[in-house]
């Protein structure tokens, strides 16, 4: 098994929204960032991978097994954007319940995480801050020794310090080459930091699935004065501003050479995402 998650032509139809033939993979030992605007289909995809929704078509392999197989599910740690523990629970209650559910529960590891995050064992969930609740959810997800960690918007609404601690924890987690992380977020800077691959979804379809370094080191934005047109085959997406035309290009160094009068800049993940979502695609695409 080379992939922790393998998704092929995954399809789900809702009234007014279709997840349309989504395919991508999460290789073992890697962190894959899943980006897209709200409503693009990120959570639907994750719920289908976890078998919480019934798919209409396509195939999903979770840790080499069918996602309906409880043995596969037991090796996956999941963290959602809201903490689902009952408000009256304390972190200690969470352990009491989950250690009964997961045979692989490691109490010592769990208490280690609580300590690392300075989470009080006896405080009720409702008195914890949003950041602390998220840390509790991640501690619980890691305590049953998963091989795959799936985070759905887990860093949304958290301050930069907490987000950084969580990124640290994810990098710790993949020190074991058998582990992998699938991480959805609309905060592209988190993904820009640590992801190995980036998958962009828009209106229920995968726009690209690319190595992050290729996106950051090669892709770029070419800015030209209006009227100085760029050939359709040379760019991916075009966008017009009041004073210039901007093009997302696959190779900024080459584009800079070919169009010396234009300015070729590096593009952040956020720039790339906005271009794909807001721009007009080239006829070549």
């Amino acid at each position, binding site marked *: 098994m080379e992939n922790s998650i393998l998704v092929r032509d995954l399809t789900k139809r809702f009234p007014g929204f279709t997840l349309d033939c989504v395919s991508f993979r999460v290789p073992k030992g890697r962190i894959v960032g899943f980006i897209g605007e709200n409503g693009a289909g990120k959570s639907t995809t994750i719920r289908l991978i976890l078998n919480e929704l019934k798919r209409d078509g396509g195939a999903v392999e979770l840790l080499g097994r069918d996602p309906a197989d409880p043995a596969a599910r037991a090796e996956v740690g999941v963290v959602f954007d809201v903490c689902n523990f009952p408000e009256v629970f304390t972190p200690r209650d969470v352990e009491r319940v989950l250690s009964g559910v997961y045979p692989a529960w490691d109490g010592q590891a769990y208490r280690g995480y609580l300590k690392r995050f300075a989470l009080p064992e006896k405080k009720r969930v409702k008195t914890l801050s949003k950041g602390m609740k998220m840390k509790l959810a991640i501690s619980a997800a890691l305590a049953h020794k998963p091989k795959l960690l799936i985070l759905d918007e887990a860093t949304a609404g958290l301050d930069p310090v907490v987000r950084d601690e969580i*990124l*640290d924890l994810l*990098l710790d987690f993949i*020190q074991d*080459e058998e582990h992998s992380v699938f991480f959805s977020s609309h905060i592209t800077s988190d993904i820009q930091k640590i992801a190995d691959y980036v998958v962009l979804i828009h209106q229920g379809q995968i726009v690209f699935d690319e190595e992050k370094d290729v996106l*950051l080191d090669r892709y770029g934005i070419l800015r030209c004065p209006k009227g100085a047109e760029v050939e359709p085959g040379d760019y991916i997406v075009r966008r017009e501003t009041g004073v210039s035309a901007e093009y997302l290009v696959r190779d900024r160094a080459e584009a800079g050479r070919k169009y010396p009068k234009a300015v070729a800049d*590096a593009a*952040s993940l956020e720039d790339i995402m906005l271009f794909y979502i807001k721009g007009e695609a080239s006829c070549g695409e």
Partner: protein
Amino acid sequence: MYLTNQYARYKQYKGAIPIDILISNSSGKPIYEQICGQIKTQIMDGSLTAGEALPSMRALAKELHLSVITVQRAYEDLTRDGFIETVSGKGSFVAAQNQEFIREERLREAEGLLQRAAELGRSHGIPLEKLTGILALFYEEGD
């Protein structure tokens, strides 16, 4: 985010030798090249010596908050260029350096700088004699 300068520092990882790596997010140079270049410099100036163990790719990625692939690419380039050797299951080590090889690397570096000077000279009308004169002056000054 690439507008602000962010520096990360890696030092001392368990048994592995301490190495210093400073990553700039605004230099425009790919991060794997920065890692590769800085490790090369430390090997060439003798702060890393033959046989010493480098931190594992995953450990370095964690310390620098980078993708494992980025570090992996840097290590692959270093291996390809003969600066390090990777023993599967044991990790990466500084390779025994051959002086000829280091000289060649230095020469390539000097060529790059001279090329830049030549381009500047050509585009601003500085005559070649003037440039070679300056070079000779600097070279002898060092003696």
